[in-house]
């Protein structure tokens, strides 16, 4: 059970908050940290709110970084956080090509 009202401290702006973490969707570290303080306690919620990991690479670049930031903000270990679901296809594929599979 995860009490979403538990105290995770107040949001303190950081010097590197403008650093881009998700390059595909251009989401910064500060946006991710703020989302956690807005109650987004899981990777899935952060992703659905900010779109980090939803771009062309589907999080293959930033997933670990996002998890580290969320874990640090919550004061838990990264291994305690469930990763976002991997979604097919593995690589972006044109609709005309995908449509050939019968």
């Amino acid at each position, binding site marked *: 059970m995860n009490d979403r*009202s538990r105290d995770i401290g107040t949001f303190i702006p950081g010097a590197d908050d403008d650093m881009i973490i998700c390059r595909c969707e251009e989401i910064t570290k500060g946006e991710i940290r703020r989302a956690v303080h807005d109650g987004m306690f899981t990777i899935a919620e952060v992703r659905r*709110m900010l779109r980090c990991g939803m771009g062309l690479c589907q999080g293959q670049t930033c997933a670990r970084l996002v998890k580290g930031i969320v874990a640090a903000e919550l004061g838990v270990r990264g291994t305690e956080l469930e990763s976002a679901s991997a979604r097919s*296809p593995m690589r972006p594929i*044109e609709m005309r090509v995908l449509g050939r599979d019968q």
Partner: protein
Amino acid sequence: MKKTADVIVVGGGAIGNATAYNLAKNGVDVLVLEADEVVGNGGSSRNGGGVRQSGRDPRELPLAIYGIQHIWPNLKDELGMDVEYHREGNLRLGRTEAHRAILNGLTDRAVECGLDVRMVEGDEAREICPYLSDAVLCASWCATDGHANPMLTTLAFYRAARRLGAVYHSGAKVTEIKKQKGRARQVVTEDGDVYEADVIVLAAGYGSRAIANTVGLEVPMHTQLMEVIVTEGVAPMFWQMLGTADADFYGHQSDHGSFVFGITGGYEDFSTAVRPVSSSIAASSACRVILGYFPILENLKIVRSWAGWIDVTADHVPVFGPVEEVPGLILVCGFSGHGFGICPTAGLLLSELAQGQTPTLPVDAFRYDRFKAPA
């Protein structure tokens, strides 16, 4: 840790969050119990984002109209988050005379309900949406339909409810409701935690069924798989919501620029998956269908696919309202795939019911005991 509240909402999806938000806004002490670790991880984040009136059962229509007139236009400001609502109309497309007959029937029924829907010929449809294939013969057109972002809407209600003081426990799977002196009073979770409230709103999607069973209630419903494919983002092309006479795909372009298409592989009713997972055939089949209507999208890349469950009742209309046999319990489930568009209205009505007020719109048509044995 909080174990008591005026109102406990079971289920932190779009409906539960909208209810909690409206209650918290009225100063009601509200606690939300979400079974999953993730808030809004059921159908609330796994739907096509339609905010439609057309194609609805007449019983649901007043809720849809109320939301589109009174809630959706201001929701962005009310919740402090852009939920990407667009009221730019819904085109339901047809390519054959058989399609035209289906669309004519749908349109006639909607007009009978007082809705501003009409049939348009292919050329007029292409004036509304210039990217349509020349093969489109006709369409039904409802100018006041639209779409929004379901993930953002669900989380916006959650965030706003929390800011107003609603308490959330996730990973708190409710297994049982217990009565005291004839009233629903306690909520028991899998971990053995016991919560207490004066009013319990059971809004747990398909999960509501097993929980309702513990106080002797049964709703005839089942789950159905639904699948979606998402494209890469491109410059804005059109904002209409799309559907087809055959219901073989629906979708829209999101603010992000990606297209989100609800799809079907034809075997949704036979899924044996424990978790909702994308099938191997639906995406390819849907690409062929979509390109038949929008050949211009042929080089657009699919970046992602996902799936979800729809909780479908026997008559495809939700169960919604207080339960006489179990005072203190309000049951809400079975939105049958049309819940997202009416979730803001449902949240308002449920909060009114939970406070013992007369709801803004009547909910009698959604009674839990309307399912009778054949005469």
